């Protein structure tokens, strides 16, 4: 079926359709344009998300001090320039939501799955261009609604990005649980629809539209990662959708799925028999796999970039694929480690501790394989490579503390403290952001036909790398000292007075890290228009996307789609003249293909 479809497409593609500005740049069905739309929307949301974090970091370092910037940006929510506690919670909530879903799910996975899946497997486009377009525009719509929620009278959602009821369900509980929360839920419901359409498209495309010779075991690891990520998304996002819908019912139609026995603001509410713990189960059934939805694409990108720039095959291809699959499977049975002290049966805690710590095994295999790939390589330290190595570093540092948090016993005292914040920011936040940056530096020539400036890239990486550790390493200490997260200030507890100077250090590093992103932004926009024009295969890479012409065209390749004769990692293969052999080059006479 796949070949037939491809053939039809091939003939179809001979005569060009007339494209208008609208069909080319706005309602485009071309995967490359959709990828760029995802990236730019994602980066825009990223600017907002990061800026929010800087605002609340200022409040944490210098609590209840007036800042002119607060007055300008927060207006009536910062009377005399002092941030209001409700706004603090709103900033924390929207920062989390935007970074996890809008930047690191849609911005990362949406961009690179769209760009790379057809190009790297040798397909003219996604299985359904129309669904792909709808998927992007739903994402865009949900972004607009999320941004709009910042401007409602009582403020945006402020119940934490996990929006646990009853706090999120009752407008009486906090101002952010009114209109702001309604918009949050609507935005997320649309976001999930977008994500599901995208994921289904990715899965079908990878399974059906691979070019001749592109067997599953010859797929680049990027595609494996995107493919498995899409499967996790299809399995777990619907559960969050159901949680969101049930919460909407509780909020607006008086049902009691998550609520029971509530007395608030002098009034007994009618809710009977529901349980907030049920919501927690539903939320984390997506919430934990979400970590891997964010992280796996970044690891896939890293695998590709490290192999290309080390001029070496990725070490242990089979083990890498197996560990992606193992992580994906385990990720769906570990959600309870977010709920050790939620009041669920302690026996469940034991089960979830066991499954959670098992994830460390495939993760360790991946880390060791990356390190071995560097060994005796001929490392081309391009900015993309630096970010990939940086990712491995933060993935290790952040992942290791997971051993503490995944252990139900140890979780008792560090649960919901800054220790958790430090852990997940390193292991999924910073790591996935590094993956995003690595991907942008590496595939910028493919997307825009121009190169980004490497020196600005180096400055961007080194300042970010130092500042990221500067922010999150000391944060572990704040958490181990027992300071809970989502505290507007710690001045209510004299016991925490000696943490004030750590908070200042963290905030200063955060501001530096934020400033470094301006270098990236400048480089990105400037290079888009004035960057040096690229050659076809600037990184001397093996994968198929670099056999397509620099100039974008509908259908990707002018002639026939290249056939594939080898895996993607024949770098520095003995007996070859060049230190790379692209996938479409047939085996030489007597050349052996590695068995995977």
């Amino acid at each position, binding site marked *: 079926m796949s070949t037939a479809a491809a053939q039809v497409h091939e003939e179809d593609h001979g005569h060009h359709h007339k494209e208008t500005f609208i069909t080319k740049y706005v309602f485009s069905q071309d995967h490359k344009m959709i990828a760029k739309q995802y990236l730019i929307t994602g980066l825009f949301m990223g600017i907002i998300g990061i800026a929010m974090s800087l605002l609340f970091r200022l409040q944490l370092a*210098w609590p209840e001090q007036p800042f002119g910037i607060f007055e300008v940006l927060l207006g009536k929510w910062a009377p005399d320039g002092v941030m*209001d*506690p409700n706004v603090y*919670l709103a900033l924390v909530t929207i920062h989390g939501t935007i970074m996890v879903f809008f930047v690191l799910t849609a911005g990362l996975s949406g961009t690179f799955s769209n760009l790379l899946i057809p190009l790297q497997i040798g397909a003219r486009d996604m299985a359904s261009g129309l669904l792909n377009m709808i998927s992007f525009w739903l994402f865009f719509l949900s972004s607009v609604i999320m941004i709009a929620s910042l401007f409602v009278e009582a403020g945006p959602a402020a*119940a934490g990005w996990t929006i*646990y*009821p009853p706090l999120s369900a*009752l407008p009486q*509980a906090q101002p952010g649980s009114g209109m702001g929360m309604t918009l949050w839920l609507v935005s997320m419901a649309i976001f999930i629809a977008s994500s599901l359409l995208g994921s289904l498209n990715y899965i079908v495309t990878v399974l059906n539209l691979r070019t001749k010779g592109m067997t599953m075991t010859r797929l680049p690891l990027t595609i494996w990662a995107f493919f498995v990520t899409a499967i996790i998304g299809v399995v777990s996002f619907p559960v969050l959708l159901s949680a969101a819908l049930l919460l909407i019912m509780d909020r607006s139609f008086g049902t009691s799925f998550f609520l029971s026995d509530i*007395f*608030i603001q002098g009034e*007994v509410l009618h809710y009977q028999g*529901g349980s907030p713990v049920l919501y927690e189960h539903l939320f984390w059934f997506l919430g934990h796999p979400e970590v891997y939805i964010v992280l796996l694409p970044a690891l896939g990108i890293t695998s590709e970039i490290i192999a290309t720039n080390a001029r*070496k095959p990725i*070490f*242990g291809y*089979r*083990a890498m694929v197996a560990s992606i699959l193992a992580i994906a499977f385990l990720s769906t049975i570990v959600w309870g480690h977010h709920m050790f*002290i939620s*009041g669920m049966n302690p026996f469940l805690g034991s089960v979830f*501790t*066991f499954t959670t710590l098992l994830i*460390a*095994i495939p993760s360790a*295999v991946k*880390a*060791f394989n990356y390190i*071995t790939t*560097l060994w*005796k390589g*001929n490392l*081309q*330290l391009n900015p993309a490579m630096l970010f990939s190595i940086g990712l491995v570093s933060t993935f*290790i*540092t952040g992942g*290791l503390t997971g*051993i503490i948090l995944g252990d139900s*016993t*140890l979780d008792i005292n560090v*649960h*919901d*403290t800054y220790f958790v914040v430090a852990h997940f920011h390193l292991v999924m936040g910073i790591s996935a952001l590094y993956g995003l940056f690595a991907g942008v530096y590496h595939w910028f020539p493919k997307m825009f036909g121009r*190169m980004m400036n*490497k020196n*600005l890239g180096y400055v961007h990486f080194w*300042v970010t790398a130092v500042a990221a550790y500067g922010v999150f390493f*000391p944060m572990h200490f704040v958490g181990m*000292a*027992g300071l*809970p997260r989502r505290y507007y200030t710690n001045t209510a507890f004299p016991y925490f*007075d*000696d*943490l*004030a100077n750590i908070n*200042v250090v963290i905030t*200063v590093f955060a501001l530096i890290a934020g*400033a470094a992103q301006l270098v990236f932004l400048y480089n990105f926009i400037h290079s888009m228009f004035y960057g*040096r024009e690229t050659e076809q295969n600037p990184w001397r890479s093996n994968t198929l996307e670099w056999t397509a012409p620099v100039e974008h065209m509908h259908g990707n390749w002018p002639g026939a789609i290249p056939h594939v004769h080898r895996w993607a990692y024949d770098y*520095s293969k003995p007996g070859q003249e060049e230190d790379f052999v692209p996938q479409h080059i047939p085996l030489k006479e007597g050349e052996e293909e*590695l068995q995977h």
Partner: protein
Amino acid sequence: MTIALSLTILVLIGISVWQIAKIFELSQSKKENTQVANDNDNRYNGQLMFAFLLFIYGITLYSFWKWGDVLLPEAASEHGSEYDNLMWISFAIIFFVQTITQALLHYFAYKYHGKKGQKALFYADNDRLEAIWTIIPVITLAGLILYGLYTWTDIMSVEENEDALVVELYAQQFNWKARYAGDDGVLGDANVRFLQDFDGRNLVGIDATDPNGLDDVIVQELHLPVGREVIFKMRSQDVLHSAYMPFFRAQMNCVPGMITEFAFTPNKTTSEMRLDPDVVAKVKKINKIRAENSKDLVANGEEALEPYVFDYLLLCNKICGASHYNMQMKIVVDTPEEFEKWMADQQTFAQVIQ
């Protein structure tokens, strides 16, 4: 002042970043204007990779030297030492692995930086090597899992018994209350429906028709006798809260509509803790900071901060609204005699509603 200073530092850092970028720009040879890394880039960035390894070690050592004293507050419950042992063992393993893997990663990035004409080693697989680094984590984690589960079961198995003190922790936006079972040792039935009875004097919603509830005692400051097991029953009247008692290595969410449980045995009284050398040092350090901050306040015509005296804390650790950051209760661990004396002074529910 601090703000002005920090902003100056930021500006200076900005300028230095700009300068570094210029140096990078100038160090490029004029001939090549491609944006792909050349030998020079590889060498410089390789060296920076090595420097970065030293930075990671440096910030680790610095943090421990400077802030090591804030880690894990002094334990004051019987399972506290068990908890702390498991924590330090896990930490030892983490530091060992972290030190070695970061060293390999960054050292390789430095050592094998690219040179023109050099060829990498074609090395795609080694089953034995991979088996080794699969099996070692398996064994290590199996040990940690078993140790962890053993401790977890030990901490979490709450058994009702005659000797234990039963205390209800009651959470609401934004304060805590505690209810003792009284002489009969049984907490009276309660529900939010009863909160409005007796003109709001029924603070935790006790069912006045249940005789078990009449001798219950409701307080705003939690007192516990040392050396006796305390079984906590947690309730919340509005949203999720979490009862976090870091000194006792104890935490449990308070969930509207259900009763959750946690138990521990305090093993140091508040007075004993105040004499503990670590706590004394900590209090001294905090009071130094407070004295420093007071100077600024007094200069602005405000009142100076009270000196800090050590007390056990109960904090809310689940986001619950605007004043989440200030939802706290003092815990006092008494000797059994002091506890009985204190308890005798409290009003029972029957007395409150009269």
